[in-house]
């Protein structure tokens, strides 16, 4: 029977999918950004629901607080607000729908036909302490190395963004 948790799950699921769908369908770019924001929040909710609070927090901080804001700023930079988005061509829509539907059907059928079986016994709680411990480990799990790679990537991305986005200073 329906209990609270289930209801919350379905609400979150509905929120995520509806907002996701709307975000790709709406003709207003600003609204699209907002729908994406809500879809991401919905996913953050699902993380909470799955009791992965740390990830949920990161999701909100990075996506909601970072990426979406970045996107909205860039919309301001490049778009006259209130202007409707150009509608895609019909044949493009048809083909896209067809391809995505086929892909979706195939994937979901495959997933549902597969029974995921677990061999793991003990559960590691996704607490911040555990995460932090493993993240900084250099020997056993060694997530320190990916961490460093990401930092290099962010550095590179930073440099790249600066050069590309600030071109007027030097080029013009």
């Amino acid at each position, binding site marked *: 029977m329906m209990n609270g948790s289930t209801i919350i799950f379905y609400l979150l699921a509905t929120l995520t999918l509806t907002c996701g769908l709307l975000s790709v369908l709406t003709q207003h770019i600003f609204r699209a950004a907002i729908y994406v924001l809500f879809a991401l929040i919905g996913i953050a909710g699902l993380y909470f629901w799955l009791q992965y609070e740390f990830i949920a927090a990161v999701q909100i901080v990075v996506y909601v607080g970072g990426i979406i804001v970045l996107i909205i700023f860039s919309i301001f930079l490049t778009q006259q607000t209130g202007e409707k988005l150009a509608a895609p061509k019909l044949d493009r829509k048809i*083909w*896209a729908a067809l*391809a995505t539907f086929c892909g979706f059907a195939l994937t979901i059928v495959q997933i549902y036909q597969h029974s995921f079986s677990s061999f793991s016994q003990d559960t590691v709680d996704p607490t911040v302490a555990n995460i932090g411990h493993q993240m900084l480990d250099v020997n056993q799990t060694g997530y320190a190395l990916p961490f460093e790679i990401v930092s290099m990537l962010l550095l590179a991305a930073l440099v790249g963004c600066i050069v590309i986005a600030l071109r007027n200073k030097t080029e013009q």
Partner: protein
Amino acid sequence: MPNTINIILVLLLPFISFLLLGLLGKKYFSRTAGIVGTLLLLIATVLAMHTAYEYYFVYGKIEGLYHSFVPLQFQWLKFTHSVSIDMGLIIDSISVMMLVVVTFISLMVHIYSLGYMKGDPRFSTYYAFLGLFTFSMLGLVLAANIFQMYIFWELVGVSSFLLIGYYYEKPSAVAASKKAFIVTRFADFGFLIGILVLSYYGDTLNFATLIERLTAPESNEFKLAVSSTFLGMSALTWGALLVFMGGAGKSAMFPLHIWLPDAMEGPTPVSALIHAATMVVAGVYLVARLFPVFALSTPVVLEGIGWVGAVSAVIAAIIACTQTDIKRVLAYSTMSQIGFMMFAMGVSNYGGEEGLGYTASLFHLFTHALFKALLFLGAGSVIHFVHSNEMSNMGGLRKLMPITHLTFLLACLAIAGMPPLAGFFSKEEILLAAYQHNKIVFGIALLTSGLTAFYMFRLYFSIFWNKPYEGHSAHHGEGGWTMMLPLLLLAAGAVFAGFIPFGSYVSSDGLILPTAFHVTFSIAPVLIGLAGIFIAMVFYKKSTTHPNKIAATINGVYQAAYHKFYVDELYLFITKKILFNLIGKPFAWLDKTVIDGIVNQTATVTQSIAEGIKKMQSGKVQSYAIYFLMGVIALAVLFIYIW
């Protein structure tokens, strides 16, 4: 034993002449080429005569039988373990006889040409070619191996080509030389296949072994050759037939004769040498060389040879009656006489009395060489004098060129078979052989000899009698002694050669064949010959209109004969229309459009496919993504559900 060095020298001296004059002639022998060539050939002739003397009178006859010697043989090219071209020299009664004929006639022509070709810009080249021809002809005669014979056979052909086309700036000479080469080449194709057949079954290329194996009914080779059949004929028959095809081509037998009249485009001495006395009888010589095989193993083919010879003889004689170019008349006469030789072979058998035809044929070959060369050289003198080949431009020359006239008359009488000239004896033997063997052929032969007398005297009267000479005055007479001497020598030959007891030297089996001479039998042919002479005299001694009237009454036949029974046109039709238009052109078209077209089309199609699919690369990044996803889905479906 044969003197090998002598024989080799006979063969090589003309070749040395060719090399010397061909390579260095232009620079060092531009004037003296004729002397050099003649001297070398003179030595060769003397040696050849000596060889003949030694063979016939010293060592050749052992216990009454003429033996065959192979004084020299070396392997030239090895095909398989048993089949190889062994270059060798064969010395037997016919090759020695031919040796004499070839060198002698060639010497005559060499001498004659000293005067005839004087002042020609390519004098040395001319003598070089003569040397090459003589060498090739001697090689053919002396060949101990059928393939060796083929080799020299081809060389003879090419020398003939070179000499016919000697006046290379004259388009008609070029055309004639090509025609001669190609027609004989076609015949040689048959010869070649014939050699392949015979050599495969005989498992050898040497004449002696080949003949021995293919005539012995108990030998394995013979059995195999007879038992293998193709299109209903045994392999042996095929082989013999194809070999004869080569001989027929070279000897201008109907229907492969068309090149011979055209070949008269060459210098007249050349015609005398090649197209009268020597090369054209190579076919007869070939049949003689392989006579045991023809006579013992494939009588059918021999029968055929007889018919081909008879038909050629009569057709050529009829055509000769209508021609107005004196060299062409002589050419057809040559063809007719070789027809005689051929059917003489055809009506012969191997051995003993039955082998009369064989002896007669070669006898006729011998005598014919003499008087026909004489005729040609005489005609050459006439042409030299009047600068034309046409009868209509001649007439009344007997006073102007007495020696030529006399010798020409002797030759005409000889060829007409008037006793006691050489032609009489040889022709009588042929007729006798035909009479004994095949009455129909005999009839044809009789008719032909009448025609021969007619057209020869038609020629004679047209040149020397008829109307008075209207051309330029005699500015240079009959030519110098160089041109007269050969005429006289040959005339002597034409008169006296008939008295040689030929049967005691040449016979099918090597035994002596006593000369059979029946006076009673000779009456009919002589009378017929006289009748021919008489008619010719009536028609042509004075310029009359009789010939035209007769021609008009039998217009159809006359026209047909005048146009050589349209054989040339038939050939032209076959080559131009069928070979060029029906085979060559479609093939060329096929190659250009279809085979090459496929190659080019492959390229075009590839390019148009490339052009067609360029739209996929639309520059739209979203389309790319759709392709991406579709690709993934397709692959996933393929590998999950189908693979």
